[in-house]
């Protein structure tokens, strides 16, 4: 920056304000590096401080790098440059204004916290599990909006499960990509390397070097039911997903009860404790009811095109006990099936020897899945790993067989 002072770069109070603003954005959860701030200053000098709209879009161009951040930026900008006209604010000396208690939505309160410097609000504290009833979302069954403390779950079980899950050898399921890499026995001739090799001998004879398609892990997308009926299993599955995320990239994890939450970033934390704690904080519908149809539709609508590219395997972890299954559930699962390479349904209910696909939800989902497996214990989880690997010892029964048998 030092070399660019003078007219080329916004300076003085304006610079100070932008730096402050950047700090507020960062506190509100956006990733704003010093490089972006420097860009913003240069950009403001380029556009010239004109109308409020221009400043807004100039800062937006430099500081927002993800579509999701737009909302946070918008709120922060409004709060930050609110009181008087922008220009006076930039000219006069400034500290961020105090936002009033208007906190109608989540983002705004997050932004307000950031401006207030109330960081501790975001950190998990040992709280008594609060049970709040939300009248708006009440269905036939009450939704339990609570952030469940992992400590409250059986510690012994968690410890054993985690250790054993960690010890699993994660699946080595490679699929071929269209990228070519040097290989001893590839099907295609690598002209470039062949030619170079032949030059080494001064052009006498050409040894053919070869290339073959590279192989890599396909993405895994997990949709994990965390409703009350699944509580015992979803925890274990999350540990499994954490281990899987750590072992290979491209694992996208979603949890759902009455709403769908993307917890990929939370699960990316190294330490499993921290990762699961963050997940618990991010999720508000832990151990409540389920709305499978709505959640799968949200996934199809908002996420499927973003995460299901490049031949993803989808793990759908749910007991399939939907309150009111209708044609929509079947339609959404079918949509999901058609968007991914393989749809694996993990159902803990399958642990019962006499499992019968009697519930309407289960019968709606079953025809559309490629594989139907239990996930109730570690043996089942190990089998799942083997199945993902493509080296399954015993092939599970086809999902359609379940239905046929039941019908008979």
């Amino acid at each position, binding site marked *: 920056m030092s070399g660019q002072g003078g007219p080329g770069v916004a300076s003085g109070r304006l610079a100070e304000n932008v730096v402050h603003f950047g700090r507020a954005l960062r506190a509100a959860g956006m*990733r704003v590096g010093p490089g972006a701030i420097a860009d913003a200053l*240069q950009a403001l000098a380029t556009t010239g401080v004109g109308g409020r709209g221009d400043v807004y879009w100039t800062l937006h161009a430099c500081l927002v790098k993800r579509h999701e951040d737009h909302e946070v930026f918008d709120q922060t900008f409004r709060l930050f440059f609110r009181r008087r006209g922008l220009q006076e604010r930039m000219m006069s000396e400034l500290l961020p204004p105090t936002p009033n208690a208007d906190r109608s939505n989540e983002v705004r309160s997050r932004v307000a916290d950031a401006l207030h410097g109330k960081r501790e609000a975001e950190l998990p504290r040992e709280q008594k599990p609060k049970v709040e009833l939300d009248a708006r979302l009440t269905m036939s069954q009450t939704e339990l909006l609570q952030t469940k403390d992992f400590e409250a779950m059986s510690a012994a079980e968690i410890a054993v499960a985690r250790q054993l899950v960690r010890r699993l050898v994660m699946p080595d399921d490679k699929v071929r990509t269209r990228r070519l890499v040097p290989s001893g026995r590839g099907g295609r001739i690598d002209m470039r390397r062949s030619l170079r090799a032949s030059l080494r001998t*001064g052009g006498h004879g050409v040894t053919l070097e070869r290339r073959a398609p590279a192989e890599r892990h396909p993405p895994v997308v997990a949709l994990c039911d965390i409703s009350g009926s699944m509580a015992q299993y979803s925890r274990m599955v999350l540990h499994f997903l954490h281990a899987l995320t750590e072992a290979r990239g491209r694992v996208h994890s979603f949890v759902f009860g009455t709403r769908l939450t993307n917890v990929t970033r939370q699960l990316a934390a190294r330490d499993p404790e921290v990762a699961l704690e963050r997940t618990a904080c991010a999720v508000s519908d832990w151990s409540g009811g389920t709305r499978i149809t709505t959640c799968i539709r949200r996934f199809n609508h908002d996420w499927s*095109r*973003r995460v299901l590219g490049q031949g993803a395997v989808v793990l759908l972890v749910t007991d399939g006990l939907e309150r009111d299954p209708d044609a929509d559930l079947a339609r959404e699962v079918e*949509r999901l099936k058609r968007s991914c390479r393989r749809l694996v349904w993990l159902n803990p209910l399958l642990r019962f020897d006499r499992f019968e696909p009697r519930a309407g939800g289960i019968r709606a989902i079953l025809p559309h899945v490629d594989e139907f497996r239990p996930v109730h214990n570690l043996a089942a989880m190990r089998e799942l790993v083997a199945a993902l690997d493509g080296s399954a010892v015993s092939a599970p029964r086809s999902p359609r067989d379940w239905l046929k048998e039941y019908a008979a």
Partner: protein
Amino acid sequence: MAETEAARGLPATIDETSVLLADHGYVSDRALATVLFLALRMGRPLFLEGEAGVGKTEIAKVLSQALGRRLIRLQCYEGLDVSTAVYEWNYAAQMIEIRMAEAEGIADRQRLAEDVFAEKFLVRRPLLEALEPHEGGAPVLLIDELDRTDEAFEAFLLEVLSDFQVTIPELGTVRSETPPIVVITSNRTREIHDALKRRCLYHWVDYPDAKRELRIVRSRVPGASEALTREVVAYVQALRREDLFKSPGVAETLDWATALTELDAMSLDPATVEDTLGVLLKYQEDVARMQEGRAKQLLDEVRADLKAARG
């Protein structure tokens, strides 16, 4: 000093930028004009993300026309590598060169290598082409649908975009004197890494609002009657509020307006709408959903709204 050279023919203000785009048939909003102006002025790549069919690629095309620069397009796909994106050697010609050298009895390896890896055997691909000097100013480099490639190519691109140079081991480094105007588009079928986005100015291209879409249709489909244009735009806007798997983009609106004009429609009627839904909706379940009477219902609502707005 370098700035004046690079800034030759570039718009000087945000307003000029939006006028420039409008003159070449692209109706932009203030946000897009601002980010585009900054990208041109600051010499930074422009990263455009958004749903399919909102006119991302079109921005680069219009930009090259408006500025009178050459457009170099790199269409991304899975498995894209250096030999298709940057450069490749003409192996057949090289082989002949080696044979000739043998015939002449040249066995000096150093010299042979120099002969074989000469510039005349170099096949230039889009990225290398974009770095070379062009008459009339640096070209517009469009890297289309970056989300279709893999992370490896993205990492390579990062290197190119930060220094505007590529190294060819056999020849040396090619460095661009005036960096190209880079436009990157993504349909967001996967997340592009933050490191790459950080080097760019980011802009989310959204569906246009009714007012802007009206201007777009008027400028792109001048043959459509005013009444039809209004109805088409209002209908598409209403359709985007429906819970569809894939909402129609601007490209679909234009296609639809063109199709209806071809059919000599002066205004919308339920039968024509149902018959031509395939132009707007590209998923069977979306079409099915609308055909269950919803298409007509929506049309009635749109009509009522238009009437209310006029009266």
